[in-house]
């Protein structure tokens, strides 16, 4: 009886809105999902709910005055945003950064990568259904890194630490011993985390083979960062186009094979190990000396345009600045990592169930502050 009924039932696609206010959309992201039963046929990402016009605000602030606003782009990793912006202005004005400042910057950027991946991995597993248990483990470790940032710049989230031509203040005397302890602790934590989750059957069943992003699609969509590396693309700007002093350190680029959610998770964990390696090397080599180039408070870079990019935790973060030799940038454009990494989401989720859609979305690791700017 049931079979005949099923045959006569008319099915039609059903549209469900996920977000904008939804715990697993990492902010105010909205997906208009076309569903066939539980299977996703198509999605349409809608964003712009967190648009604050940061690029426009740059045009009415001084070059230094824009640095606190870059914190608000990707608020999970503000140090990297600071670094990217400062590198762009330095390239534009031809400023040389002192050695000590370069080392401090590298340590901060790598600590930021660790903190960001702690959030990324934790919240991805949160989306997978491990409700807050792995998240608490990673957040505990992130707290230790944030303590270090708090020590050097006085705040826990919006650091505003780097300046054009260096960093704002020298690291305090107690920073390097504390950093050593944190690095030791994080190495231990990564082992613990591996034990907790590497062979976990539930995670394997949920994440392996889910949301495969092919190499070709990743390249065509301009995807960068851990998401691209999980698809097998060996592309890291720290090696491909070394900025700052990254060419002095030894580290590997971890890559995945299949480009599924599990590979993206693995690549992030491996990257954390590599970041610890860089921090260990940098903290040993750090020289003395000045921490900021001798510059006036307000700089007037020569007219021209510049694009500088860094390997932010989420991928390639670029700043395109046009100067007209005035107090403020004529135009400042941000190449947002999260927005461009979202480009392949539509193809990735087609044919998967709605629970997998949440996991795939979580594995890309986006921040809405950067998507909408």
């Amino acid at each position, binding site marked *: 009886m049931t079979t005949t009924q099923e045959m006569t039932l008319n099915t039609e696609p059903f549209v469900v809105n996920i977000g904008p206010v939804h715990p697993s959309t990492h902010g105010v992201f909205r997906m208009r999902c076309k569903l066939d039963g539980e299977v996703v046929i198509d999605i349409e990402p809608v964003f712009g709910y967190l648009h604050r016009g940061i690029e426009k605000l740059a045009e009415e*602030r*001084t070059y*230094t*005055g*824009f*640095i*606190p*606003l870059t914190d608000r782009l990707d608020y999970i990793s503000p140090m990297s945003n600071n670094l990217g912006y400062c590198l762009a202005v330095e390239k534009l004005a031809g400023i040389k950064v002192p050695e000590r400042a370069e080392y401090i910057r590298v340590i901060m950027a790598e600590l930021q990568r660790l903190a960001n991946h702690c959030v990324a991995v934790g919240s991805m597993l949160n989306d997978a259904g491990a409700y807050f*248990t792995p998240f608490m483990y990673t957040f*505990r470790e992130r*707290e*230790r890194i944030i*303590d270090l940032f*708090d*020590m*050097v*710049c*006085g*705040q826990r989230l*919006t650091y*505003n630490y780097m300046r054009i031509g260096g960093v*704002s*203040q020298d690291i*305090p005397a*107690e920073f390097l011993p*504390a950093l050593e*302890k*944190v690095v030791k*602790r994080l190495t231990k934590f990564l082992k*613990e985390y591996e*034990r*907790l*989750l*590497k*062979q*976990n*059957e*539930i995670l*394997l*069943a949920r994440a*392996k*083979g889910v949301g495969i992003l092919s190499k070709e699609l990743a390249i065509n969509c301009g995807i960068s960062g851990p998401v691209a590396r999980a698809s097998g693309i060996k592309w890291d700007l720290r090696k491909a186009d070394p900025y700052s002093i990254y060419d002095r350190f030894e580290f590997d680029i971890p890559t995945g094979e299949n480009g599924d959610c599990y590979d993206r998770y693995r690549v992030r964990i491996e990257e954390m190990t590599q970041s610890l390696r860089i921090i260990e090397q940098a903290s040993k080599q750090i020289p003395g000396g000045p921490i900021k180039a001798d510059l006036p*408070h*307000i700089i007037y870079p020569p007219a021209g345009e510049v694009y500088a990019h860094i390997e932010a935790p989420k991928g390639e973060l670029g700043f395109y600045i046009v100067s007209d030799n005035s107090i403020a940038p004529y135009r400042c454009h941000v190449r947002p990592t999260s927005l461009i990494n979202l480009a392949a989401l539509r193809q990735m989720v087609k044919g998967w169930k709605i629970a997998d859609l949440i996991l795939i979305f979580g594995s890309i690791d986006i921040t809405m502050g950067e998507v909408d700017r």
Partner: protein
Amino acid sequence: MKFERYGIGILKGMTVTIRHLFRHPTVNQYPEQRLNVSRRLRGNELIWNRERCTGCATCAKACPQGAIELVTATNLKDNKYDVTTYRVDTGYCIQCGLCVEACPYNALFMGYSYERAKYRRGDVVQTNDELLESAERPASGYYHPEIAEKLPRQTLLVERITEKRKRK
């Protein structure tokens, strides 16, 4: 997908969680127990030193939000500027600390206090005497290492948490 040894991974994970039963707690009871904040804390309210301030308005120019307002009057007797009004709209302030860094006379400090919420909207705009340093409003060591030395050492979680529960 094939699982050859089903359950091993979960059991391994359980050993990690069980080990955490014997640990010192990570959290603390906030309003009663307090950790020392960073010596360079960029706290809620700006501290202004009236004696050192010359009314040059470098802070107002450096502020990305335009939260600082300064009115000066010429003092012909001493041949200098008198600051008649120094007003900070704390509601606009993003605590970036650029004004403190810009001040050439060391007349500005970030606040060391937190929990400075106000009940009325008008209270967030602070003028002249409300900005001076007092026992309730200590100055932070942000960009002022000489003050930072005197403040208590920051509690670091990495030093505070031990693996095993300490015996009394």
